[in-house]
């Protein structure tokens, strides 16, 4: 063809290759090690006989706890937290978008502040309080605390979502014979269902990834969620079976990755919203 090779593309390629190398580094190690049945050191080696042995090993108890129990714990905690936050932020967003009252602006500002607070600043006093109340190691209390931590996120999303749905539909429904709440439930809610699903999924993965609160508030290994479980695993006595940890990390990461790729369109829109404002 004789078309000249564009030399200017080379620095771009170099940059992209560097980025790929940098970002793939630990991930590739994790994935490869997870399938290496004999990974007793941190060294990166491509297994000669890749197998699922590590995943099977996770079904055997380590110090009295089957690692998969941690996944189950995480599922319980995250589902409950996501359900609770979705329900609560639904109600709150309804009030915030469908009524106007004094202190509304201040409330929204407060939510922005809470959304940006480092979790540690809340975890420490919660540790103190839960100790005093005897609520350490208590799932119910953990779920409530997690929900409170996640609520500002989901609430703001729900708020912007409902604000985007014209109120006229509700007014029409009210004239057609609904109560105010009824109109919201029968008309706006079905319209917001995809948004609610997004909120639920987002709350789920945030709760799923949460580390600080369970670290502070849960002390019994059999009650750990997966995040603290990994840390516990890593600090295990005896041989460190890196393959097993990698396998566990992989299982633990997959739901998050799947969920984020499902909601990524919304996510990008949300981030773009930060700019547009």
């Amino acid at each position, binding site marked *: 063809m004789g078309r000249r090779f564009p030399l200017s593309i080379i620095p771009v390629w170099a940059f992209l290759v560097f980025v790929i190398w940098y970002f793939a580094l630990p991930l590739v190690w994790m994935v490869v090690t997870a399938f290496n049945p004999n990974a007793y050191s941190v060294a990166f080696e491509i297994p000669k006989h890749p197998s699922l042995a590590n995943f099977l090993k996770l079904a055997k108890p380590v110090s009295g706890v089957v690692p998969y129990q941690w996944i189950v714990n995480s599922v319980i905690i995250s589902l409950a937290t996501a359900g609770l936050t979705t329900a609560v932020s639904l109600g709150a967003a309804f009030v915030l978008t469908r009524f106007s009252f004094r202190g509304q602006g201040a409330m929204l500002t407060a939510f922005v502040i809470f959304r940006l607070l480092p979790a540690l600043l809340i975890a420490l006093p919660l540790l103190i309080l839960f100790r005093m109340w005897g609520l350490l190691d208590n799932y119910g209390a953990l779920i409530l605390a997690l929900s409170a931590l996640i609520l500002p996120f989901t609430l703001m999303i729900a708020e912007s979502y409902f604000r985007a749905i*014209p109120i*006229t*539909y509700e*007014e*029409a*429904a*009210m*004239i*057609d*014979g*609904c*109560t*105010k709440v009824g109109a919201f439930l029968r*008309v706006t809610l*079905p*319209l917001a269902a995809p948004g609610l699903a997004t909120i639920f999924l987002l709350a789920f993965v945030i709760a799923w990834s949460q580390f600080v609160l369970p670290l502070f508030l849960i002390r019994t290994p059999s009650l750990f969620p997966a995040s603290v479980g990994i840390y516990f695993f890593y600090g295990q006595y005896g041989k460190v079976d890196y393959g097993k940890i990698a396998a566990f990390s992989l299982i633990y990461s997959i739901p998050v990755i799947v969920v984020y790729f499902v909601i990524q369109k919304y996510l990008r829109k949300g981030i773009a919203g930060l700019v547009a404002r």
Partner: protein
Amino acid sequence: MSTVRLENVTKIFPPNVVAVNNANFKVEKGEFFVLLGPSGCGKTTTLRMIAGLERPTYGKIYINEQDVTDLPPRLRDVAMVFQTWALYPHMKVYDNIAFPLRLRKVPRSEIDRKVREVAKLLRIDDLLDRYPKQLSGGQQQRVALARALVRSPRVWLMDEPLSNLDALLRVQMRAELKRLQKELKITTIYVTHDQVEAMSMADRIAVMNKGRILQIAPPKEIYEKPRTKFVGGFVGTPPMNFIPVTFVVENDKYLLKGEGFSIELPKELGEYLREKVGDRAELDLGVRPEHIRISTSEEPNAIPATVYIVEPLGTETIVNVKVGETLVKIKVIGEALFEPSTRVWLVFDINKIHLFDTKTEEAVI
């Protein structure tokens, strides 16, 4: 068929925006009542208060002489057609129309019968299986009407239902709506900013501006006897021309003096005017474009003007002329060929002029 009555209704939005200022009127049974005014004049707020979507800050609202001020919308038995039609996007047309009936726990067969009946009436019976998104604007409009009609409400409220349609369709729907209303004899309150729509459909019109109701009257009266300068200017296309004049009494002659002209009024009229405003007053002379005739030669009581630009519109022509600094539009039937800067004289029937007080803007005659 019901009546609607507003008593001293005022609506103030926080912090202190007065949207509706002391509205009082009564809509009679089966009447087609139009609230007309520019956007932001408070007409929609008035309608929403009747619907129950807003609560008046002061005053009372009666439907059939029953006080409904505190009643939530669902207990008022009114139907409303929104500007955007507000069809529920997640429901099919059938469900949209059936929705109000379902909420009232009407038996299934009855719902089905009524929905089909009203769909037939509005000629949308072949669209029942579609979602609103799949419909054209006109079709959506009909569905919204159907939803409002299906439960035979006490009052029909319409908030600029035609404004989202294209011009041709709007004219067509206008007639159809009017026919429907007359046929079903439902009390209707209709909000619009389009004076043509108001004139062509209304039994009575209430013209609003800045939260106040300026005049309530049948269309003909609104047109012929505007009570304020605003009403006169708002109704009619092109709008009424206003020329600033001074009313003076000189040597027993009653004159309207303007920039470079002077018109003598008939004696009766002059005396009437003198009684009303005194010997000397600043007024606005209001003349509708169709009531002016252009003369190329000087005539008594004519106003000298200069042609500014000519807009031929086919069957008629709008001639813009300048009287001093004031632009005056004149409607001429057929073609009118004037070169810009031509000097002309404006002649008009003295019985068809309006005079408004410059300060209060109220009609003097």
